[in-house]
């Protein structure tokens, strides 16, 4: 049986923890709002770019093999997975759900006899994958996921890395895995293929495809557009991820705060019972002592 003093210490420590978790929840809440706005601001560009890409891809479809980023290498042997996680923990299942999905994907690909390479963005994902798949990690991009505001330049850095590997023939298919932000409560682990690019359906206005003039020619525009598109895709994924991380943390910290509250109630009840038991015991001792005299 813990003494009264022990229980008091314990209650105080849980109280302190609750203070921390509730502060973290508030911080995550305000960061979430910012991250969400940020992700929303980036969306029009991504949409417009996808539309333009679809138009262009449709225009060059009939001409030869096309750009390697669009056509792929013609093989399906080596897969590159960009694993986007957070730099910090204490955000529920945010990191572990990405890592779990990645692990499953790696296993699947290996069973099909394919080899896998990994680029880790975010410290947590690297830490969790390093033990098992350390030899697969070709690159670790530090200092991006933890930023207060992820800039387009950060996404470009990753895109350049991916492009360099692709040009060196290091992989055939690239995918990025991240948490898509559905709401503060729900984040969905999503795999998105980066290379080769899968252009969406061309936006055909009432079936009449406008005949575009290109300046300079289609191929040069496409050669500029495709690498940019890669960066835009990665940027979008990073922003979604950032919003998801804050959402997940907010929910996790809310739960923790509530749990701490319940724990405090339980401990306080036990503490008071114990105190009363002690008082009763002492009274009995006094009374029976007096009777004996």
């Amino acid at each position, binding site marked *: 049986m813990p003494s009264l003093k022990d229980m008091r210490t314990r209650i105080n420590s849980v109280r302190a923890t609750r203070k921390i978790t509730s502060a973290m929840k508030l911080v995550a809440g305000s960061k979430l709002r910012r991250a969400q706005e940020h992700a929303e601001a980036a969306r029009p560009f991504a949409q417009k770019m996808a539309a333009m890409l679809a138009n262009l891809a449709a225009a060059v479809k009939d001409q030869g093999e096309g750009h390697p980023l669009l056509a792929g290498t013609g093989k399906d042997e080596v897969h590159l997975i960009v694993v986007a996680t957070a730099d910090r923990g204490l955000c529920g299942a945010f990191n572990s759900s990405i890592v779990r999905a990645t692990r499953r994907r790696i296993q699947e690909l290996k069973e099909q006899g394919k080899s896998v390479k990994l680029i880790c963005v975010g410290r947590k994902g690297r830490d969790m994958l390093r033990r098992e798949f350390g030899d697969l990690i070709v690159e670790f991009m530090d200092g991006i996921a933890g930023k207060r505001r992820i800039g387009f330049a950060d996404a470009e850095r990753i895109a350049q890395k991916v492009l360099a590997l692709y040009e060196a023939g290091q992989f055939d298919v690239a995918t990025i895995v991240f948490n898509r932000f559905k709401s503060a409560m729900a984040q969905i682990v999503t795999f998105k293929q980066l290379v080769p690019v899968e252009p969406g359906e061309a936006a055909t206005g009432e079936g009449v495809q406008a005949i575009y003039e290109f300046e300079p020619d289609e191929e040069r*525009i496409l050669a500029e557009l495709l690498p940019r598109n890669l960066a835009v895709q990665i940027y979008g994924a990073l922003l979604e991820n950032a919003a998801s991380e804050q959402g997940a943390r907010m929910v996790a910290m809310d739960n923790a705060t509530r749990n701490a509250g319940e724990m405090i109630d339980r401990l306080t009840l036990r503490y008071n019972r114990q105190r009363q038991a002690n008082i009763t015991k002492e009274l009995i001792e006094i009374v029976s002592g007096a009777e004996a005299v």
Partner: protein
Amino acid sequence: MAETLTLELVDPERVLASEPVEMVVLPGVEGDFGVLPHHAPLVSLLRPGVIRLYEGAKVTRRIFVAGGFAEVGEQGCIVLAEGAEPVDQLDRAAVEQALKDAEEDLADARAPSEEERARLERAVAIARARLEALTAPVV
């Protein structure tokens, strides 16, 4: 007000313009070109330069872009810009400093690889265009 077309100017981080304009002049890689309503469908690469929005014969806004793409279609003109900044928000001293830094980087680079050199030259070109955007007279 004369007939207008819709201009949408977006960069990866935000929307800079989404409004009807009477004419917009874009810095294409093969020369500046103006877009009026009912322009023929066109896709063009942009070089570093200034996008000018017109109302009548007057320039209402000037926006610097470091590059990007423009698509002119039935719906209007869509510009996917890189490094877009309104010209009136550029800081003269910072721009000059950036140009100097870029030129120094290029001069200091010892035996740069072909890509490295291309990247540095591009940075200088962008910085120079940005300075020109500030000094050029408003047409």
